[in-house]
C-alpha cells in the first residue's frame, strides 16, 4: 500500500458535546512531510479536531496513521505511535522546572527516552533561551518562552506527526514570527509532519502547504496556503481585509 504517503487520514469525523455538534463529518488528509493547517474563528472546532485525533474526546469516524487505524486508542497510546500534541494555551506544567517539563516529553516511548540527551542538545539549537533556564520553574517563563518550551517538549517526544494548537496565541508579533520560523525549520530540517491549528491565518497560510477553513464544525473551504491567502472570502473574514 502506498498509503504511507499520507501521515494522517481523517475520515468522517464527528464530535458531539451534549446537544452541541462540534464537528460535523469532516474529512481531510495530512501528507507525509507537509505542513497542513486548520484555520477558523473561535469555536469553529479546531481544538476539538486535534483532541479527537489524540483520542482525548469521544468521536465518530476514523483516523489513520500511515494507513493504520488508531481508533479506540488512549491518548498516551496515540502519543506512543508518534502523534505528539502540543496543547492549546501552552500546555506546560508551571509547577515543574523547564528541564522536568522537557523530560516529560519522553513519555511517548523508550526511543525518546534513549535519545533524550541528543534530542535535548538539538532543542538547544532551536531554542537557545531554554538552555539558560533549565532549572527555573516553567511558570516563571515569559509567554513566548513557555510556547517554545511546549514545542521543545513535543520534539523531545520524537514526533512523526506534530499537532500544534495555536502556538502563536497571545504572543508579540516578533515572537510570532520566530515561532513560525521554527515550525518551518522543524518541518524542513527534522522532516516532521505538522498539523497546525491557528487563528493567525496569515502566518499559518504562509507556512502551510495546504489548508482547511473550519466554520462551525464543517470544512467550508480548502486549498493551497498561497491560494487561500489570495482568496477573497478568506481575506475578508480571516485576514481582516476589505
Amino acid at each position, binding site marked *: 500500500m502506498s498509503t504511507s504517503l499520507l501521515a494522517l487520514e481523517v475520515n468522517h469525523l464527528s464530535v458531539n458535546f451534549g446537544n452541541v455538534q462540534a464537528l460535523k463529518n469532516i474529512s481531510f488528509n495530512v501528507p507525509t512531510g507537509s505542513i497542513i493547517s486548520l484555520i477558523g474563528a473561535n469555536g469553529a472546532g479546531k481544538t476539538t479536531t486535534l*483532541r479527537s485525533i*489524540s483520542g*482525548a474526546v469521544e468521536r465518530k469516524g476514523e483516523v489513520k496513521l500511515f494507513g493504520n487505524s488508531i481508533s479506540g486508542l*488512549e*491518548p*498516551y497510546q*496515540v*502519543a*506512543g505511535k508518534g502523534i*505528539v*500534541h502540543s*496543547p492549546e494555551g501552552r*500546555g*506546560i*506544567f*508551571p*509547577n*515543574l522546572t523547564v528541564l*522536568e517539563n522537557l*523530560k*516529560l*516529553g*519522553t*513519555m*511517548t516511548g523508550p526511543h525518546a527516552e534513549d535519545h533524550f540527551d541528543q534530542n535535548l542538545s538539538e532543542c538547544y539549537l532551536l531554542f537557545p533561551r531554554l538552555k539558560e533556564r533549565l532549572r527555573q520553574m516553567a511558570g516563571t517563563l515569559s509567554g513566548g518562552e513557555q510556547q517554545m518550551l511546549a514545542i521543545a*517538549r*513535543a520534539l523531545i*517526544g520524537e514526533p512523526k506527526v506534530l499537532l500544534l494548537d495555536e502556538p502563536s496565541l497571545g504572543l508579540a508579533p516578533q515572537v510570532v514570527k520566530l515561532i513560525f520560523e521554527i515550525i518551518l525549520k522543524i518541518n524542513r530540517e527534522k522532516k516532521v509532519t505538522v498539523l497546525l491549528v491557528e487563528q493567525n491565518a496569515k502566518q499559518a497560510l504562509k507556512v502551510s502547504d495546504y489548508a482547511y477553513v473550519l466554520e462551525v464544525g464543517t470544512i467550508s473551504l480548502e486549498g493551497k496556503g498561497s491560494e487561500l491567502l489570495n482568496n477573497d472570502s478568506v481575506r475578508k473574514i480571516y485576514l481582516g481585509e476589505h
Partner: protein
Amino acid sequence: MEEFIQHTINGLSLGSIYALVALGYTMVFGVLQLINFAHGDIFMVGSFFGLYAMRFFAPHFQPGPVLAILVMGCAMTASAVLGVLIEHLGYKPMRRAPRINILITAIGISLFLEYGGQLVFGASPQFFPPFFEKTQFHIFDSVTIDSNQISIFLIACLLMTALQFLVFKTQFGRSMRALSHSLDTANLIGINVNQVIRITFMLGSTLAGAAGVLYALAYPKVEPLMGVLPGLKAFVAAVLGGIGNITGAVIGALILGLSETYVAGYISSTYRDALAFIILIIVLLVRPSGLLGKKRIEKV
C-alpha cells in the same frame, strides 16, 4: 525543661505517624482533587494485616528487625492492594461524575471498610504485640525515649525520604506533579494518567499501612474503628500544610503531633482530640490554602 523535651520526643513520634497518613491524603488530592475519606480505614486494615502477620511469623522469629520487616511488609502490601482496589472499583468509574457523587462514594467506601471490618475482624479491640523488645533509654534523669519511639521515627523518616526521592527525582514523580497541575494536559502529552493515579493510590495506601503498624506499636490495640480519628487528624494535618503539597503534609503532621502532646501534657488530655478540629477551623478561617499551599481556595 526536661518535661518539655519529653513531650517533644513523644510529639515527634506521634507526628511522624500522622505524616505518613497525611501524605496519602495529599498525594491523592494532588492528582484527583479528591479527599479519599477511606484513607483512615486503609490505615486500620494495615494494622490488622500487621497483626495477622505478627501472629503468623512470631512463633518462627525473634523480635527484631527481621520480624519488623516481615510484619511491615505484609501490612504495606495488603494496604497497597486495598488502595488500588478502592481506586479501581470505587473512584475510577466516577472519574467524570460530579464532586458530590464522588464524595458520597468516598464516605460509602469508608463505612463499608469500618463495618465490614467489624464483621471480618470482630468489633472488640485486639492486643498488638511489639515486634521489638521494648527498651527505655534515659537521656536525662526524667527524660526517656523508648525503642518503639525511635523505630517509629526512623521508619517514618526512611519512608518519607524514599517518597521524596520518588516524587522529585523520577519520571513517575514528574508525571504525578504534572497531573496535579492538569490531568488533561498530562493526558494529551502522552502520560498514562490512569496508571499514575493507580500508583499514587498504591503509594499513599502503602504509607497508610505502614503508619497503621507503627501506630499499633505505640498504642497496642487494634480495632475496626481505630482509623477514624487518626485519619481525620492526618487529614487536618494535610490541610494545615496545604493540601496537595507533600512537604506541607509532613510539616502539618509534625505540628499537629507536637501540639497534641503539649496540650495533653500541659493543659489536659481531654482537649487532645479536640485540638485537631480547632486547628482545622482556624486554618479554614485564616488561611484555607494551608501553610505551604497555593493561594487558591479549593472547594471540597
